[in-house]
């Protein structure tokens, strides 16, 4: 979602964006924090000449190796964020959204964050699931809805965990013990983090942990321009939370225990390090602040403040950035660094369990997931393994899905249905010939009774020849079956043809009506009536032949 303004505001995009309410509210907070941190340190000038390929080639690494630098963009502004958000239409889980009458789109809980969704795109016969950023662990959001993903023709799978080897539960334990150890030794703890998401779980763990660890006097500071909003918003999305938290709201109690931490003054939140925070600031303490890349935001100040003392610890929990890269400009560093990435998204074991459960016909995923990570080439368990093998895609590649659409829904109006005459052709199979007017509106098809032919005006005395031209040609049904010659001849005789003569040919028979100079060739799959210019006779013969045939 963080790139949404680039699409809605820069590309001429004129469509609707669908998202759940928590996604919009929390997404707004994340973008607000980003814009705020960037705008706080305005740059006097910006350089772009280096993006020229010839110049870039000469630059030192890692700039030299950066790809697609011409695509790099400046951060958007708050008005752009608001404009982008105004284009969003709110939807709820399991809400069926009709798009142009052709497909239905449905968001499902993905279990990863408040309001996070997987999506189903389906027509009457095809179902495509988009699974991204899902979690099977029980944290605060509503559990992942797996049942609705069943019977997918295609399942697009992305947003798997970035740290497939780390166990989130173990990481949380490590986080707590490192934090406690540092504080007990009189040091400060810095947790670079986003203002929403895992922080709710960390605070909940600490809530249970601090008393037993004897940390009840250590202040926790949460510093972000949106800290207050994030904490408040987390409490009002009861319907998007896991069952336990929902039950609390029914009591009524706030679903997250950070409300109590705030009430008892253990957790304090500030919009920035300026203002009230500088008065209240007490050490040793624990600080949660952004940005996890350590390149901007208030975290930079704390790195510089605490980096020189080996008593202090910085604990990385967000998996989006390599902690070594993040720390590089601050080296040499006396401060302890602990890396406990907490990424609750699906790992490869969970993926194979999920696929076994959901059983899609085809799986589509990014290329990276079809091979082991480049740094651990021997770990063949770290890739998606399913039958048939997943189809992979690369950036800007167009994939054709191995699926052929064959049917579509159409509605038959009740009046038309009444007029149909089904015939049982084979046991259990009935057929009816339908001749009707097709109406297509908003991609919905309806069959209606053909209108009655308008009565020709009787007043016209002399009709012009062209008036008789058959107007809309009513299509005749196809015929099937074969004509038993003997019975046919009998029928002819019954109808007054006395001079019927039958000749055998290689493929069938020829029936001759001598007087009328008419000839009927009868073969297995065809009948040919050749007659002179005698229309009543021809019609009569036609009707007799038709009696032996089935119509479709």
């Amino acid at each position, binding site marked *: 979602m963080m790139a949404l303004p680039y699409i809605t505001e820069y590309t001429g995009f004129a469509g609707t964006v669908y998202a759940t309410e928590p996604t919009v509210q929390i997404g707004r907070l994340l973008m607000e924090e980003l814009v705020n941190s960037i705008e706080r340190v305005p740059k006097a000038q910006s350089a772009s000449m280096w993006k020229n390929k010839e110049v870039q080639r000469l630059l030192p690494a890692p700039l030299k190796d950066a790809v697609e630098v011409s695509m790099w963009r400046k951060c958007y502004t708050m008005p752009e964020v608001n404009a982008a958000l105004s284009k969003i239409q709110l939807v709820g889980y*399991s809400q069926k959204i009709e798009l142009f009458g052709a497909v239905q789109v449905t968001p499902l809980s993905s279990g990863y964050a408040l309001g996070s969704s997987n999506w189903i795109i389906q027509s009457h016969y095809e179902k495509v699931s988009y699974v991204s950023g899902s979690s099977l662990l029980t944290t605060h959001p509503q559990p992942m809805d797996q049942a609705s993903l069943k019977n997918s023709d295609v399942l697009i799978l992305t947003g798997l965990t970035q740290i497939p080897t780390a166990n989130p539960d173990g990481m949380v334990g490590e986080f707590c013990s490192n934090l406690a150890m540092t504080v007990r030794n009189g040091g400060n703890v810095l947790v670079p983090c986003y203002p929403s998401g895992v922080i709710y779980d960390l605070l909940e763990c600490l809530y249970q942990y601090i008393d037993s660890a004897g940390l009840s006097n250590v202040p926790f500071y949460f510093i972000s321009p949106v800290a*207050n909003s994030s904490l408040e918003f987390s409490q009002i999305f009861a319907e998007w939370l896991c069952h336990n938290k929902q039950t609390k709201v029914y009591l009524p109690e706030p679903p997250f225990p950070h409300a109590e931490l705030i009430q008892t003054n253990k957790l304090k939140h500030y919009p920035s390090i300026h203002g009230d925070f500088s008065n209240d600031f007490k050490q040793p303490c624990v600080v949660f602040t952004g940005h996890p890349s350590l390149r901007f935001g208030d975290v930079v100040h704390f790195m510089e403040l605490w980096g020189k003392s080996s008593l202090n610890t910085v604990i990385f929990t967000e998996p989006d950035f390599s902690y070594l890269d993040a720390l590089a400009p601050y080296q040499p560093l006396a401060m302890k660094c602990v890396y406990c990435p907490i990424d609750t998204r699906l790992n490869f074991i969970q993926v194979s369990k999920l696929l076994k459960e959901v059983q899609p016909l085809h799986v589509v995923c990014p290329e990276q997931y079809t091979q082991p990570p480049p740094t651990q080439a021997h770990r063949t368990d770290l890739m998606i393994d399913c039958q048939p093998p997943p189809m992979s895609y690369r950036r800007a590649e167009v994939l054709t899905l191995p699926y052929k659409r064959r049917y579509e829904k159409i509605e038959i109006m*009740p009046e038309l249905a009444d007029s149909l005459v089904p015939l049982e052709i084979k046991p259990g199979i*009935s057929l009816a010939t339908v001749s009707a007017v097709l109406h297509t509106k908003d991609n919905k098809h309806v069959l209606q009774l053909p209108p009655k032919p308008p009565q020709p005006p009787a007043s016209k005395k002399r009709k012009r020849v062209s008036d008789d031209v058959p107007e809309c040609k009513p299509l005749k049904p196809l015929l099937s079956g074969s004509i038993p010659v003997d019975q046919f001849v009998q029928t002819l005789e019954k109808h007054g043809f006395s001079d019927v003569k039958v000749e055998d040919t290689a493929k069938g028979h020829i029936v001759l009506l001598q007087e009328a100079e008419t000839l009927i060739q009868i073969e297995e799959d065809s009948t040919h009536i050749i007659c002179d210019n005698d229309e009543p006779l021809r019609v009569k013969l036609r009707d007799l032949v038709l009696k032996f045939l089935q119509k479709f």
Partner: protein
Amino acid sequence: MPEIKVTPLGAGQDVGRSCILVSIAGKNVMLDCGMHMGYNDDRRFPDFSYITQNGRLTDFLDCVIISHFHLDHCGALPYFSEMVGYDGPIYMTHPTKAICPILLEDYRKITVDKKGETNFFTSQMIKDCMKKVVAVHLHQTVQVDEELEIKAYYAGHVLGAAMFQIKVGCESVVYTGDYNMTPDRHLGAAWIDKCRPDLLITESTYATTIRDSKRCRERDFLKKVHETVERGGKVLIPVFALGRAQELCILLETFWERMNLKAPIYFSTGLTEKANHYYKLFITWTNQKIRKTFVQRNMFEFKHIKAFDRAFADNPGPMVVFATPGMLHAGQSLQIFRKWAGNEKNMVIMPGYCVQGTVGHKILSGQRKLEMEGRQILEVKMQVEYMSFSAHADAKGIMQLIRQAEPRNVLLVHGEAKKMEFLKQKIEQEFHVNCYMPANGETTTIFTNPSIPVDISLGLLKRETATGLLPDSKKPKLMHGTLMMKDNSFRLVSPEQALKELGLTEHQLRFTCRVHIQDPRKEHETVLRVYNHLKGVLKDYSVQHLPDGSITVESILIQATAHSEDQGTKVLLVSWTYQDEELGSFLTSLLKKGLPQSTA
């Protein structure tokens, strides 16, 4: 013919104990399960024995839907599920699920503990009943079973109130519950999309009222409260703990702040704190403004409004008290009313509708001497004011909802018969749809005429839509296909495919006619004349002159040969298949008439 049957067990030409049975496409759904506040006997609850005499309710009902937490919509629920016995699913929104058991418990306490009734549901029954509840999100499509699905829409009215769409196949019913089409100080307006249900079941509490603007009513209310307080009187506002109470609290709170008033405002204890807390936690269900500002200032944290203690009622001096319940039929509001009724300086403001039989209803209809329990006569000297703050749609709102949803039929419930009659006429006049208003126990049957969905092969559909790109209303194009019915599936395919699937081969029926034409010219000249003639007559058809000397009209072949005996006569062989029967027949008769001389 498919039909939808509706039977109100309560709220049929009446307000109170809402309970409506709907049968749609073989599914039975019960809408709301309310109690009647005006009665203390059997009439209090709907007559569930109507549903089934000796079978289990669970076998008969596919689901129960509760629209909102007011007791006249959910009050009979524990009785129904635990005492009569129902184990199927009960659907309601999250806030309703949260608040409903609290109101039920409150109601139980008043009935059992205070009035000493026995044979009433217990606290445990309320808990067991709530375990059967499935909470739904707004707009979420809930699949009750394979065929039956329900969907909730925002209804305003009170926190968590919802309208429900019940859908089976392409037949659907919308039940509004109670709703409000104008946003108020704490809730938004009801909204529904153009879902074109076969039937809309709407409440009609204010069927004949068109209310003036909300602002006027608010100003009026504040003026009356202010005046009474100024002259040292006490104001009693009987309310239900959740709903109107919060709206009026917000109103008074801001007024007190602006006017810097000092007179105390109390809210009767018990539910207050809790109620406001629910509003804080379910803030996503309130209106836009409150949702936007809640981080800075939560509208449900009141500075001027304090908890009420029973002893305060005897305090001297002015005060404003919100007390429950709202219809003065029991509890604290009735106690305070009895204390204050004798003083003409005081005032009671009824901010909502009162059900017949309640004290509230009596004083509103002008009665000033009330017979209380124990044959005591209470004389009412205090001023009695009625202000319609209950958040029901007025006549304008009901019409607006009908316009939004575009139902094929409308059915009125939750209103008084006379007023319904008036609204019914108005609806039938304006929208030209049937409008019904069954009494309790009376069944209304509505015939639906659903289209039949079948599968059409994409090949056939594409063929048809490709040839008819430009829709022409004057000359509708006929499509031709074969409907295959096998087991229970219906598929529309092209005739060729039907033949193929059945393993049959096509039987071609062909006609060839000889037409004699008098024309002394050479064969190819004759052909050319025929060609020009046909081209002239058959403007809409593709007429082609092939290099081998034959002519085709669509797929009909015409060849000319000289007569073996008479060179002046040419024989035209016209050959067509059965599929071109009309055209072929027309051509032969056309050619038989000979060629026009003018083309010579």
